[in-house]
């Protein structure tokens, strides 16, 4: 069976803050990969795919756009910076405790893979695509450009290898990336937010990096036995 993907180069035109959830109310570390939820959400927003609300004001349960990625700039942790700001409680007009946020500096590059299906087959016509990735968009964060499209065809019989996963993918969406649910070793579980309406979401279990999986070669680092 063959699965096809668009591979894009992602370039951060502004600082990017794809954060873990808020800790202790004052600290928000960032993740060093591009999770499925972040990039798929950003692309859905930018391209308008999967955004038609049903009668109850919810997003469709069947999604057509599936994307995941990772940063390709070496030693991306060196690009971590922090900024502290004091959010305001608008209703009460009071200040809240200052929050320190980690973000990745602009200029870093990544790779994004989008599953090709009927809805994404003609994405090429729309490049370069500009997306807003992650949090603090109102503060000018997250502005990224997708360029340099390339098509990748993966023969699931031949082109899959065992290695350490480089991104975060919900368990329900593994099949879209040709990843069998049988792991190749240690697994890291976590939860990713899935938007079910413009204002609501639920958390779905996902495989986090560096789970040991059998996957298309571009999604894994080979030979990472000590994926701890």
């Amino acid at each position, binding site marked *: 069976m063959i699965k096809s993907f668009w591979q894009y180069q992602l370039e951060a035109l502004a600082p990017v803050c794809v954060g*873990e959830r808020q800790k202790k109310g004052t600290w928000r570390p960032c993740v060093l990969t591009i999770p499925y939820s972040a990039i798929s959400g950003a692309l859905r927003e930018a391209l308008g795919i999967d955004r038609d609300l049903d009668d109850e004001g919810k997003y469709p349960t069947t999604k057509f756009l599936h994307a995941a990625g990772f940063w390709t700039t070496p030693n991306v942790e060196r690009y971590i910076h922090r900024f502290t700001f004091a959010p305001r409680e608008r209703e009460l007009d009071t200040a809240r405790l200052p929050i320190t946020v980690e973000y990745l500096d602009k200029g870093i590059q990544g790779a994004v893979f989008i599953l090709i299906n009927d809805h994404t087959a003609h994405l090429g016509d729309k490049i370069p695509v500009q997306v807003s990735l992650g949090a603090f968009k109102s503060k000018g964060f997250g502005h990224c450009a997708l360029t340099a499209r390339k098509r990748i065809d993966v023969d699931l019989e031949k082109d899959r290898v065992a290695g350490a996963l480089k991104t975060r993918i919900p368990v329900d969406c593994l099949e879209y990336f040709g990843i069998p649910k049988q792991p190749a070793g240690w*697994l890291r*579980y976590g939860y990713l937010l899935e938007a079910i309406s413009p204002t609501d979401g639920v*958390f779905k279990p996902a495989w986090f990096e560096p789970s040991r999986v059998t996957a298309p070669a571009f999604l894994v680092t080979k030979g990472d036995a000590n994926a701890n």
Partner: protein
Amino acid sequence: MTMSFIPEMHDIGKMVDNAAVFAAIEANPDSSFTLSQDRRGHCFEWIDWSHSKHLEPDTLTWQGIRYHHRIIGARLIQEYFWPDTESKQRQFFLLLADHLAAAVARSLTDEIDARISAEADGVYRLWKPEYYQQHQKSNSRRREWAAAYDEESLERLLDYVCDPNCTSESFLRDYAYWLTLTPEDKSAPRNVTSLFTHVELVGKFYRALRREWTNLSVLAPTYQSQNAETIAQAELRWRYRLVECCFHFPQTLVRAVDLNVLLKRQQLMNKLQQQFGDNVLLRTADTVLLFLPAEESLAMHLLVEGFLAAGFRVDCRVAETALALLDAGVFEARGSKLFEQRCAQLNAPFGVDLVALDAKRQQLREQMNSEHRRIGMTARGDRAIEERLRAESAFVALQEEERKVRSEFDRVRNELKQLPEKPLKIDCAETSLHPDLADTIVPPLCEVCQMRPATMHWPPPDVETDLRDDVCAECFAVRNMGRDKTGKTFSNLNKWDEEEQSVDVAWVRFFLADLGTLGRIVRGLFEYYVDRGPLAPLDQALRAQAKENLRTFALLADFTNDYRALLDEFFAWVQSDKGKAWFPESHVEGLGDKVAFKDLYVLRVEEGAAIDQVIRQFQKLLEKYFPQCVDTAPVRLAISVSNVKYPYDEHWRFLEKPAALINLQMPTRNARLLINADQLTMLQKIELGERRTASGRFLHDLVEQERISGTRALPQAMMLEALHKEEKEMRAHRPTRQLPEKVWEAYRSGRLTARQILDYYKIIGW
């Protein structure tokens, strides 16, 4: 015969200084003991019990002590000389356990054995060769390892064997000192493990093996439908598992109470050890090495269910193979030549075509018969005589060849009898065990572990605070562990957090490398010992064979025991007057007194010199306990210094898996330093002294130059210029010295960068 059987005591004879005891008995005409002709061994065969006044002990344990070397691996269990089945079984499992717990497999060739007869005095610690010598009192003629060195101490030892109150635990406790100093085997290279670890492992293996075999009415033990009538058969036919379990917690360390998760892990590991102690071969702060049957009679889930229920993730490495191949290094078997060779060696008989060998043997016999007939011919004459002589020589040659083929045939057939039906193989797998995960979680998600729905609020209603965290029941339970009356654990840390003035703390963690790395380090040390120690005169092939026969269980256990001793000593230093001078009680938040491994501290620091003290104390202890592996750094130190309010999880991220021997960071000053022992020594030699501010400024310039130029040439030129300038100023009696020569020396050596020098002084020199 009475009392329970204590397998740990089977090698008690190794703690007897035979020479001293013989001399004492011979010198005393009224001795209770009479010496026999046979003066060798550690099974008390040198006492002629029939003529001694002292009665021979009559306990089950004594049977094990006396006769565990009377059985050889290839002897059938039916031929053991005890009349009853139970005694035979007991000896069978004792010897099997003894083989498994040996540091060097018992299969060393006779040639090596014959050439390494020299006895070592006391245990030889691979990572600390002077270990025994430091214990041996220089003014004492008595061997320090000997628990029995004269008649009186011998009688005491024998009486101990007969003590009805004696248990495995009490024996290990009462004789710990001598057991630790006595080697498992006094001949090199088997003298590398302590008797303590060996007998402890024998006890564990014995009970774990025996538990699987409950059919006492059948003489030949059967396990997994593979019966074994000899020890060799059991070693080759019975498959067991080694499982390395590493316990991870999903919690992010947000508040001081989240540190409870480390205590929780220790509690659960203690419980595991209590319940399945015989299956736990090794234990570190977060890992256990389990010895389990291959059948699912002791399922992994049962062992770790407590961890899963508390939300821990368990990463397992599982290796399943025959007992003969089971070793802590077996996890790397897939890529290891060593295990491939061993496997191929043991499986060699499967590659021999016995039918062809038998056919060849038949053919040779027929040829021999034919020649024999020719020899028997009665014709006369010279030609007939010549022909007969030719037939005779051909017959002799055929006879010799047939003998060789027959012996090869018998050897292979006998080896096949020991082996299982299919060739031996090693199965390795990695897997993770997770707590049950919900398919969907409707927000809020637990803020601490992010793995379960947040159903509770922290803190509990009885604590007055404005804070409120949404947490799951498991994280709530962890946070709620051991709350004192004030509603807070880790009171010092909390107190510092609430102080108005800024408080700096150093998170200090000692780290032991994972078992795979440890195994490689220990194997490397053993190989060095074989090449440079008493086996050095042997040729390379024999030395290679000795190296291949290493089993690392006992060595790893000894290593982890020494690591614990190092941690205990550091803990004692913190509590001593010397330690208190730097860290009074109010400055220490140690998890050390609460957890089994005293490996994590949070110390309030007023100045960088306090951090320097911790590093120097670690260096001292490292030199004391592991002088031979400072370079390979199986034991590491990580220190993260910052304001107390800095996120705990950021400290933990740095401390969790330190990469170098010394790992220092001070995020608030943007300093991070990973260095080895040599680099640390060089840095410690540099004294910036009172003018360190000026030096610091200079170092900042150097770092910038290094960064911009990407080479060392420009910074070196800068340094030379500075030194030149300094010299001029000295001449002009203006000693505004900016750059000590030692900085220049350290930098010029090429082993330190300007960044490292600067970072070190950012962390230490404040």
